[in-house]
């Protein structure tokens, strides 16, 4: 059986920039075959120049990506996806504006062949704090934030730097398990949003063309206690958006480490996976020396 497909969930209220982000990811997929599921009333808001062909249920996108919509039944849409001839590398679910991401993640986890791989919640810097106390949708928005592994602050250019700082402090309370990142015009690096792909070192070496983020690769000696390392890498003051890599544990087994925001997961690695752990974060927040130093304490 092939390895389970990683599924990244993109949530956030209406107008936060989810669609812009999805289009940006498709534009910068760089060889990764993404399958995007959208649930905004079945609209397929994919930029026209990206579309290669449009069928009844599915849009083919340049670079081997596809996009389809789902109505009220996400599981059925994912099961349909699993039946496609060409297997995607990764699934991206763009939630509806009122969806609760943890409910979506739980549903994904039920299906054989899929594994949730991070919840990214888009935040409209201008409106979110007002929306979070709205009588009708306030609790929906706070529930979305609680579920976030990463919050992407969008439209930061429309507010002052002081406002962004204040917003980041606010998010530490409202989204306690998330790392928050600032996205420029709805754009955030693919590796950050979706993770590092099957071969993290290769992804890293493909470069960071947009210059928005930095990364380092940690060497991994054999016989590593992955849990101790993971706890250090997900605790302050280290600020890692995502990390992925492979190591040999104390029993000599090859393991994979995934980090999204403050959450980590250790699982069996595929055979012959290359040793080493790649950590990425946003320029300005990311301190490679600190990460190396912190990691060395655990190694």
């Amino acid at each position, binding site marked *: 059986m092939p390895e389970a497909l990683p599924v990244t969930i993109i949530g956030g*209220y*209406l*107008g936060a920039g989810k669609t812009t982000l999805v289009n940006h990811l498709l534009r910068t997929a760089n060889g990764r075959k993404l399958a995007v599921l959208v649930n*905004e*009333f*079945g*609209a397929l808001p994919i930029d026209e120049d990206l579309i290669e062909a449009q069928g009844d249920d599915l849009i083919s996108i340049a670079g081997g990506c596809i996009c389809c*919509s789902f*109505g*009220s*039944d*996400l*599981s*059925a849409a994912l*099961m349909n996806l699993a039946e496609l001839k060409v297997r995607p590398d990764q699934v991206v679910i763009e939630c*509806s*504006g*009122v969806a*609760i991401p943890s*409910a*979506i993640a*739980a*549903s994904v*986890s*039920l*299906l*054989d062949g899929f594994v949730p791989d991070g919840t990214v919640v888009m935040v409209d810097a201008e409106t979110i704090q007002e929306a979070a106390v709205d009588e*009708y*949708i306030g*609790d*929906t928005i706070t529930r979305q934030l609680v579920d976030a592994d990463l919050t992407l602050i969008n439209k930061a250019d429309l507010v002052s730097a002081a406002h962004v700082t204040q917003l980041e402090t606010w998010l530490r309370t409202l989204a306690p398990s998330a790392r928050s990142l600032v996205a420029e015009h709805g754009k955030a690096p693919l590796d950050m949003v979706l993770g590092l792909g099957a071969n993290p070192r290769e992804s890293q070496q493909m470069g960071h063309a947009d210059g928005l983020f930095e990364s380092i690769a940690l060497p991994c000696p054999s016989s590593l206690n992955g849990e101790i390392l993971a706890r250090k890498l997900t605790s302050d003051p280290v600020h890692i958006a995502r990390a992925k890599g492979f190591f040999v544990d104390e029993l000599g087994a090859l393991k994979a480490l995934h980090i999204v925001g403050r959450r980590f997961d250790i699982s069996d690695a595929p055979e012959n996976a290359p040793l080493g752990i790649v950590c990425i974060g946003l320029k300005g927040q990311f301190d490679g020396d600190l990460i190396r130093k912190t990691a060395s304490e655990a190694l």
Partner: protein
Amino acid sequence: MKTTVFSAKKIVTMNPQKPEASHVAIREGRILAVGSLEEIATWGDYELDERFADKVLFPGLVEGHAHTMEGTLWRYVYCGYFDRMDPNGKTWKGNKSIEDVLASLSAAEALLEDPDAPLTGWQLDPIYLDNKPITRAQLDSVSATRPIGVMNASGHILYVNTKALELAGLMKSGVNHPGISLGNDGMPMGELKGPDAMTPVGEHVGLNRSMTDSDERGLRDFARLCVRTGVTTVTDLAARLEPDGVETMLRVTGEPNFPACVVPLRFFLGLPPKELIPEVARLKKLSTDRLSLGRIKVVADGSIQGFSARMRWPGYHNGAPNGLWYISPEQMQEIYELALAEGIQVHTHTNGDQATQLAIEKLELALKKVPSNDHRFVLQHCQLADRAQFKKMAALKMSVNLFANHHFYWGDEHYRLTVGPDRALRMNATRTALDCGVPMTIHSDAPVTPLGPLFTAWCAVNRLTASGRTQGEHEKITVDEALWAVTMGAAHTLHMDGQIGSIEIGKRADFAVLESDPREAEPEKLKDVEVWGTVQGGRVFAAADA
């Protein structure tokens, strides 16, 4: 042009100008005249049909909120608590214990020849069975080798056996999902809550992915239930209306002996609002005499007993967190504005009072931008609305379809658990709606509760709960008001009051053929008025032949 005149013991018209008559003339499927034979004879030659000489002709009953999928469900094993009539007219005994449910399933299982064929049940309601879900182990006692799935009465929970979980790959430890409860052994107990938990298993227990659409046979079977309950016009309140489904509905309802007019509403998901409204306008043009298209169903929130309805302060009585939105306020308003501009009617499902409030506020805003004097927007269920909300609805010319049957089946639960005593009294406030001047009908939401407008009328008149308590004395309505609600009231909510709902010149010749006059029934006996059958578009359908 052939004219048929039916004589009857009595014709009750629901037309205040001539409340009763002895004869009705039909030409081209429509009512030509109502009155005495002498009055009718002024129209010329006719053929007198006296078969209803000892019957009461009543306007064909109109069910304003049902789902035709009930027809399909009857092919599965009935596991409900209450006695219920199937399309053949057979009444299935209610299952009064888990043992009864297992016995019903075992009896059906014994008839299956294919050892791998799934066994499917429906309408199980554990609320009446000590409030315990049926477990995987219990279902295994029916069969350990074939997959078994039993649907909850709400349609939102599925109970399955071990084999079904195995086929879906869920018979394992480590399943982490709020909709799936685990036993002491760490394995799923067999209860699957919500569509996302149900879908991976559903196809293994005989439930396909688009089960809300009834198939051809299901549609015909549902129409037979209509004949048995005196219904001549019935809604299908959340249809996907994809091209195949529309073609099927047009074809089946167009069959010479199809006995009802079906009114499917296009479910709002699947298209963005800017495409949804033109699509529904296109569908509207495909309408026939027996398939009336061109309306939209929006769902604002979930259900009260599922704790997914959106509640205003102080929220749920048991402290459960507030429910879920199924549409954002912005999108609701966008649909309203576009639909108003196109003259498309929108029905909005609101269960909790906060959802009702949002729909009212959004329609008010939309009407300021796109004024409309007769939009006929309807709130469906609207179970918790208070007087202030009904007054506002009247001011905005909204209509309402209240869930009278729900009060009987789950009123005790609402009193005890979900909303508490105060609000349980005002649920489905039919009296308040009428007093505030809101055009009102009442519904069954079949298959959630059984189709049968006379039973629904009985529920609104008596406001009894299943345990026999009268809940909300002050919200009772009279027999006449309830009968108006299931005829003219429902016709109004569908904007079909010019065509159906009363026995009146020019309207479709749709009658419920009854054994007695329901207006004269004792209020507590209203549900027991016998239905002989229907006349639909001038065609006679006897329940005995359906």
